[in-house]
């Protein structure tokens, strides 16, 4: 029974999106142009493509992204708005709509759009993250009013994530998507995304690789962070956080190999023996049907090649739900930040 469903989903998906490899190729070519910064050429070809495929969600999504990069927010808003109307079950267009509204200081509209994104996908991490930023921005506006600070329009932009998920990132890797990839996606969901039900449009949502998130307005650091930090440290800080994120994602995906690879060779394993620790981690992780790990309020202290990260870890598995404070001591090893020590509690 379940086999049949996957099979039928694949058939449907194939029928719409992979019926003609040339079609997929065309979008990939356009994407390549975007990557090279040739937005005008890309848009021209995309418009041609859309003439013959006016309903293609992926192409319209890409058009919205290009218009955003071309600094045409009103046009981009129109594209993403139409997408939310035609495909209300897709969270990504809502998210991007929110990013655009936020860039125009229309925070209430941004908030509503993000809440729609979350309504369609309650555990959609980027939307939550963006919503947090929007609330922080709205809060700071209220604070300004409370303190009679008139910052005008020069106030710090919110740092929001534009989603590029609808657009197959595999295109960059030259390999055309194969029919097995959507199936893989269905069985191995992204850490916090719910597996999409196999509706006709669903495969467009489920990108073959999870979460390639690009920052559109990434120039500003987090509002809570101090601006004093010098650029290289800022870069390191992001790199450290990214490593922590990958570690949590590997854990959430039960990707034991990637999870173990997050630790240094000389990792101070509890019990002292790294091999024993590895074995017990493998067993424990693969034992769970599902795992979700979230990192809350991470604080990074960097001292040269060594970083200490404090955060609240929220762990949910089929059998356990915990919230603990965790400290990771990380070291930069051949340009990657790896975990050398892991402590629970303060």
């Amino acid at each position: 029974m379940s086999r049949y469903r996957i099979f039928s989903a694949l058939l449907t998906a194939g029928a719409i999106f992979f019926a003609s490899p040339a079609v997929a190729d065309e979008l990939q070519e356009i994407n390549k142009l975007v990557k090279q910064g040739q937005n005008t050429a890309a848009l021209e070809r995309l418009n041609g493509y859309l003439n013959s495929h006016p309903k293609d969600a992926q192409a319209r999504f890409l058009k919205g992204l290009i218009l955003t990069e071309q600094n045409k927010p009103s046009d981009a808003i129109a594209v993403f708005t139409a997408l939310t109307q035609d495909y209300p079950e897709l969270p990504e267009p809502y998210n991007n709509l929110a990013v655009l509204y936020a860039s125009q200081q229309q925070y209430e509209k941004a908030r509503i759009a993000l809440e729609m994104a979350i309504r369609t996908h309650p555990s959609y991490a980027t939307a939550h993250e963006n919503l947090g930023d929007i609330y922080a921005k709205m809060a700071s506006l209220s604070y300004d009013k409370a303190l009679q600070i008139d910052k005008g329009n020069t106030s710090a932009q919110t740092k929001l994530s534009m989603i590029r998920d609808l657009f197959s990132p595999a295109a960059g890797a030259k390999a055309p998507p194969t029919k097995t990839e959507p199936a893989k996606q269905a069985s191995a969901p992204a850490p916090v995304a719910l597996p999409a039900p196999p509706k006709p449009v669903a495969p467009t949502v489920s990108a073959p690789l999870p979460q390639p998130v690009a920052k559109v307005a990434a120039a500003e650091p987090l509002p809570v962070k101090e601006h004093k930090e010098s650029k290289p440290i800022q870069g390191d800080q992001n790199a450290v956080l990214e490593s922590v994120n990958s570690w949590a994602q590997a854990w959430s995906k039960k990707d034991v190999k990637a999870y173990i690879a997050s630790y240094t060779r000389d990792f101070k394993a509890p019990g002292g023996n790294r091999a024993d620790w590895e074995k017990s981690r493998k067993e424990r992780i693969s034992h769970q049907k599902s795992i979700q790990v979230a990192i809350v309020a991470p604080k990074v202290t960097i001292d040269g090649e060594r970083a200490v990260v404090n955060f609240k870890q929220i762990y949910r598995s089929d059998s356990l739900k915990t919230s603990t404070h965790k400290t990771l001591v990380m070291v930069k090893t051949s340009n990657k930040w790896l975990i050398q020590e892991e402590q629970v509690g303060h």
Partner: protein
Amino acid sequence: MKLAFPIKLSRQTTVWLWFASVAVLALLAAALAHGMGTRPVPRLPVQLTPSGPQLSSESLLVKSLIEIRHNHLDVALNDIDNLLHLNPNFRLAHLIKGDLLMARARSIHTLGDVPDPTSPHVEGLREEARKRLQHYVEQPRAEQIPKYLVQFEPNQKYAVVVDTSRSRLYLFENKQGEPHYVADYYVTSGKKGSDKIKEGDERTPLGVYFITSHLPKNKLADFYGDGAFPISYPNEWDKRLGRNGHGIWLHGVPSDTYSRSPRASSGCVVLTNPDLDELGRYLQIGVTPVIISDSIEWMNAADWRAQHEELSKYVEKWRTDWESRNAQSYLDHYSKNFSSGNLRYDDWSSQKRQVNAGKTWIKVNLSRVSVFRYPGQDNMAVVTFLQDYHSNNLSNQMRKRQYWLQENGLWKIVYEGSV
């Protein structure tokens, strides 16, 4: 860079931290636990059922804080939004809205968790929250009377009593001689506190004053809002103590402001514009007393009556002793510290004895007598009346004011003069 879904999970602890950080909210919590305290309150300040379209701005603010206490953050935000709709310039409401929004993004550690949470601006708003909330937690009972209001004169329809420590102004009505609570308002007073002594000390005076005039909005800078009511600082007692300064007013706030923090004026008593408009309808120029205290003492009706009778008796005895032409019993009413204008007790008393010797009869009638106890000065009372004096060689009518001070349990006059 931020990671995954923290929002819902961190909220509860967040709000608790926030709440715990505001000392007075603990007061509120205690009061709620005891069913708003053991004392009955004059009116139900906050309807917890969302039914009242007539909720005052302050009630809405307090209600939202109570909703936060109950962790109904969405309701609280809704209340704050309603409040801001009514009063777009209510800065404290903006601050709380900021917190309610920020709590969805990250942990909040204090009320007004702004980038610089120790700035005096935020401290002022926090103080306003405390004062406004404190009022709802510790309201005086409806039938309680500030001890200052001993006796109204019949045409004094209202009296104003200010408590600077609580940032509150109370309005009482004269109902057949008895003071009855009418309303109260949040007020701002001097940034350096109360007990004004000299010009520029940025303090609010403590004492018994009267409204002297009304300055309408169109005659004033925007800073004073909807109008101003100057009061009679420095009064006779202030002058005697060498206190100076001028221009102590009750006034409103600038048009871009809903209310100012509790300690922000240069000595004036500042109300929100709507409150000033409302209060202004009750004030009588030259008549309405404004009694400013830094800690109101409240009395029950029986104690109030006893005090009223005691002081009336003294004044009446003074009058009859004067009529008796017995110079000694008349002068016994005066303190050795008495002074009037440039005259000290000794000169003044011998002068009185001289005058008294020439009288064959004296008739004194007092009307429009008011008696107010004096805040900031133990056991002093201000007595004002219309004196109708007739004698064999002189008759006159004058408005007179006396300051009575209790010495060794007996009330004595320390100052007397025409008004």
